[in-house]
């Protein structure tokens, strides 16, 4: 359960038995394919989820950067992002474990919608906790969860955002741990979540590696993925970690600046790999955005999905080992990346994903001749945010926005 000095199980005692039960189930079903769990998981990912997703040559970006750019199209997965790989795996595992109920928390709503879909598909009752303020900002996602039959419980404590929703879900789990599984949405949390979520997401790199060899005759020189909690990142890197020739770039949200306002407790970015320091959060030792007392800072990013003060412990370890290159791309460059991919390739990426394309623009000269970028999700969910944020800036590649911003 450790990645060097990172990882572990920093959870309330009441949850330890559940965590241990889960670790046992992980070993049996995921690692051991007991009862054909992994076969069923892979089959459902294919039929319900739409795997394999393509590895597509990006013709126009390849020309622009004079390098071969390939896109791993996780945006085409059911639900519109890589999130389903994990949600489906965990809900199925809960079923194999004899659990009768699913809970999850969600901030921007992406993990919640993926979990709700998986729970509907597998006929599991599901409750999603979501901060009241987030509910008001993400009504379409709330509606999607409810359409899929999940109960969405508004969390009104504190500021009504992700952190309060996490606490509320923990509370639920602490009371119902015997028949309930808590689906964590990234490679964070106590062991076995980080390894388990990585293993469910590793299909991204498993496919991408095979597709790259088949299409280009060799391994990529570089693999690029955006990083918030890090589940798409580790999923995209996993099978390349042992390929020492392949450089791995984790692109974090640089937000408005990497400078920290310690007084206000605000880091206007989410670059925990790039700027964070070791600490313990949500069950694991990892790199964090924290003040000198150890209080967690409020992080910020134009992309709500990257807006998290921690990061998966395995990524923290791989960064310390020098295997993963952590980089930060700011809000402006991410928005430019959003518009560039939309108008040159006909793919509207999630704002999370857009950070990876901001990186490509800024650093393509440092990259090798075959670059794989993970398109972790589609941008339909981000249209309102993109209109609002684009309107604040002067972006060359953006369309004329006047018809959208007038009267908004």
């Amino acid at each position: 359960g450790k990645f060097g000095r990172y990882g572990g199980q920093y959870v309330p005692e009441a949850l330890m038995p559940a965590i241990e039960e889960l670790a046992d189930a992980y070993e049996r079903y995921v690692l051991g394919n007991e009862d054909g769990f992994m076969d069923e998981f892979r089959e459902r990912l294919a039929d319900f989820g739409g795997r394999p997703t393509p590895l597509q040559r990006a013709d126009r970006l390849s020309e622009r950067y004079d390098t071969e750019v390939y896109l791993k199209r996780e945006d085409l997965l059911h639900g519109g992002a890589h999130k389903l790989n994990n949600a489906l795996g965990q809900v199925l595992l809960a079923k194999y474990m004899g659990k009768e109920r699913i809970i999850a928390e969600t901030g921007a709503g992406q993990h919640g919608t993926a979990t709700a879909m998986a729970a509907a598909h597998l006929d599991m009752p599901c409750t999603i906790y979501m901060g009241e303020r987030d509910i008001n900002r993400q009504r379409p996602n709330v509606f999607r969860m409810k359409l899929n039959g999940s109960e969405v419980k508004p969390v009104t404590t504190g500021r009504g955002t992700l952190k309060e929703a996490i606490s509320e879900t923990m509370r639920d789990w602490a009371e119902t741990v015997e028949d309930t599984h808590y689906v964590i949405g990234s490679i964070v949390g106590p062991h076995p979540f980080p390894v388990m979520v990585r293993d469910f997401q590793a299909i991204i790199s498993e496919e991408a590696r095979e597709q790259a060899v088949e299409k280009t005759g060799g391994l990529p020189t570089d693999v690029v993925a955006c990083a918030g909690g890090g589940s798409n990142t580790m999923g995209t890197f996993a099978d390349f970690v042992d390929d020492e020739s392949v450089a791995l770039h984790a692109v974090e949200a640089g937000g408005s600046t990497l400078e920290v306002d310690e007084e206000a407790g605000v880091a206007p970015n989410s670059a925990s790999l790039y700027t964070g320091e070791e600490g313990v959060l949500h069950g694991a030792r990892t790199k964090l955005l924290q003040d000198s007392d150890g209080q967690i800072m409020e992080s910020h990013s134009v992309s709500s999905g990257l807006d998290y003060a921690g990061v998966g412990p395995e990524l923290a370890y791989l960064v310390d080992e020098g295997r993963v290159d952590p980089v930060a791309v700011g809000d402006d460059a991410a928005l430019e990346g959003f518009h560039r991919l939309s108008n040159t390739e006909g793919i509207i990426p999630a704002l999370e994903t857009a950070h990876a394309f901001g990186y490509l623009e800024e650093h393509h000269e440092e990259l090798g001749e075959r670059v794989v970028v993970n398109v972790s999700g589609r941008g339909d969910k981000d249209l309102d945010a993109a209109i609002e944020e684009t309107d604040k800036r002067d972006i060359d590649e953006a369309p004329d926005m006047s018809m959208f911003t007038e009267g908004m």
Partner: protein
Amino acid sequence: MGNSDAIDAAFADGPAYVPYLVVGDPDYESSKAYVEALDRGGADVIELGLPFSEPIAEGSTIQEALVRSLDAGMTPDRFFAFAEDLDVDAALVCMTYYNLIYQYGGSEARSASNASGEAASTGPRPFVERAAAAGIQGLVVPDLPAEEADPLREACDEFGLDLVFIVAPTTRGDRLDRMMENVSGYVYVQARLGTTGARDDVSDQTTESLDRLREYDVPKAVGFGISTGEQAERIVAGGADGIIVGSALVDLVAEGVEEDRSTGAVADRLEALSRELKQGAERGYRSRTEAASTQ
């Protein structure tokens, strides 16, 4: 038995009343008056909550109290100053999350290591050292299971603090053994599944847990959901060596804030409830010892 004589003493003679409040809730001065009221009400040990920004093990009552305290500017250093400032007889225990313990003094350590070119030696030792200096006699860390506790345990031993673990209704077998090897001072027996919070009922899980723990020779303080003298009586009659009360007391502070009560009025209520709880616990203890001598 434990590292701290004061805590041993608190459990030595009759049942211990262990109240909890969040330090700095809703502000430093009121909080000081409230903690002193607990002491006057009969507290044997006082658990002082040091607020962390992500309190994953708390019910909403205590979570809101932590937010109030943080918003009012509570920090670990102010917490220690508070402990030093207190005029109480009860033994003091600090309840907080591991990241605050782990980070304490880290920035100094890091600056020093940057200057010397060596790796920073962050870890729990500076926090425990400072806590000891402030008169804290024990620690409860709800997100630190026994498996991850070695460094903190060592620091506590070094500075003479007890490290209290929480035993859940689901803690059994090897895990329980391991925990009981590491615990000192008292064991915090979680009366039911869930997070902190006052409840009307006292669960059957409490009795089961106490049965399970009978063989271990360490004081057992039961917490989670105790809010009345009657509950305290039943729990101590059932075998507990102490009762831990948090949310019911924090509720009085929260009510005070909501209804804009004076610090004195809130302190009086805290003292009164403490008296009721302490007396309940003593009744329970008497009925238990009487029952034992009758047999």
